[in-house]
């Protein structure tokens, strides 16, 4: 799954995103859902399969990404090993 962003109306739901982007449920991380990044400006994030992301890049106005989704870790205690 890869992270993408899309523009949707305020209060958008996963079903709305699926319709707008013409995605099937199995192509989306349903548990992750649609995350409001900047609801005032209609910016949302979701995680989709790499195939779906590739297909969506053919219509760049529909989405932005894929975005890096790096591993994050606690900043402590400081370790000497890797």
């Amino acid at each position, binding site marked *: 799954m890869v992270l993408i962003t899309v523009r949707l109306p305020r209060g958008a739901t996963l079903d709305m995103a699926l319709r707008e982007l013409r995605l099937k449920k199995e192509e989306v991380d349903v548990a992750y859902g649609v995350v409001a*990044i900047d609801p005032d400006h209609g910016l949302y994030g979701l995680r989709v399969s790499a195939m779906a992301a590739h297909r969506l890049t053919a219509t760049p106005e529909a989405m932005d990404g894929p975005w890096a989704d*790096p591993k994050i*870790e606690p900043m402590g205690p400081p370790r*000497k090993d890797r």
Partner: protein
Amino acid sequence: MRVLVQLRPAPDVVAAVADPAVTATAADVVNGLPGVLLDPTFTPVAVPRPLPARTGGDPLSLNQPLIFSMAPRDASVLVRGEIADDELSTRLALLPGRAGVVGVYADPVIQTSLTCGGDGPVGDWRDVRRLLAVDRLHAEGYDGSGVALAVTDTGVNERHVAAALGSGFVLDRERSWSPDGVVGRPGEFDVDHGTMCAFDALLAAPKASVIDIPVLLSRRPGGSALDGLLSDAMAAFAHLRTVLDAQPAESRALVVTNSWGSFSPDWDFPPGHPGNYSDNPAHPFNLIVGSLAAAGADILFAAGNCGRECPDGRCAYPDRPITGANSHPAVLSVAGVDVTGERVGYSSQGPGRLADRKPDLAAYTHFAGSGAFGPGEPDSGTSAACPVAAGVVAAIRSRVPSTILSPSDLRTLLMRSADDRGVLGYDYDYGYGVVNVPGIVEALRARAGETRTAEGRPWLAV
């Protein structure tokens, strides 16, 4: 430039300097040196003369067996002084040979070795409370009451925190949130890093309501550069936006402490790639951070543990290790100092990747505190410094909601009132300095005198 001047005065003067029963002064040794401002507070020191141990040895060589003579005819005396930087080369050329001057040497600033990972605790949480002037904070009504304090970490163990603090606290189960798949209930997670963060934040703000966000417990399948967990932090911040929006405007106060980050460029697209996180303000996580701050949340991030002196072994950025949201212009990026006020050697130095002037300020770490990592183990890393600073912010918010003083204005007040360390003014080790509670309280008072609410009342008195 500060210098040490080696002199060879008369033998009786040398004998007096070497005599522990006599306290000599620079004026006893030399009647002034041209261009040198002698330090009257520095007691002159007798220096033995190295002599060849064997008859016929080279009198100038130190690479042979030596004896060291403190006999008055052999020994010399050191005094301390200062030469103006713009006269340095002239004075250094002219001084030797005059008024018994043997040599002039640099007197560089020396430092104790910095605290590093693996070192024992330096001080304890009571020292931190004292340094944060917590009694004064609370006496002024800054105790975290009514403030939502989100700890985005490995989850909080309420029982352990309460036992370590010696008092209960409010764990806000209703507004807590977990990523999908995380097992466990708010306040009941294993004692770990998040428990330390909650304890450290409550030192200054014991009446804050802790919102437990165990985002670092999320485990999503994958393994490529695109499968990770920052997306879970993004979902957590979206949840916190709903928390913030639900608060009444007149008491809006949400503080978010983040003691985590991304250690390696291997998990990211390279800088310049449109999907990059570390250097890219357009990355959606960086956007949501900016959006939440603009809506009124105070967001703090640990600067990181990649300081040059003793970096964490996980640090993989070759330079500028304060990356992504940890260097966001709309957050307070927190460096670490021990309770002596010295920067800990692992605290990451700026400049930051999203904003140049990172870290913003420093707070206390590496002290005996929560005991979350076992008896005798310190609360360490900029991981501890960040919630310590977040507690101060939460304490302030109990009287000053973000609708009265924006997060940006509060950051400015914190930075302006910080106790300057390192070089004069801003530096990449300490930022603007160490968080200074009396300074911020005075700054808030001054600002309250200037600012009134819409109803015309001084805002701090509402």
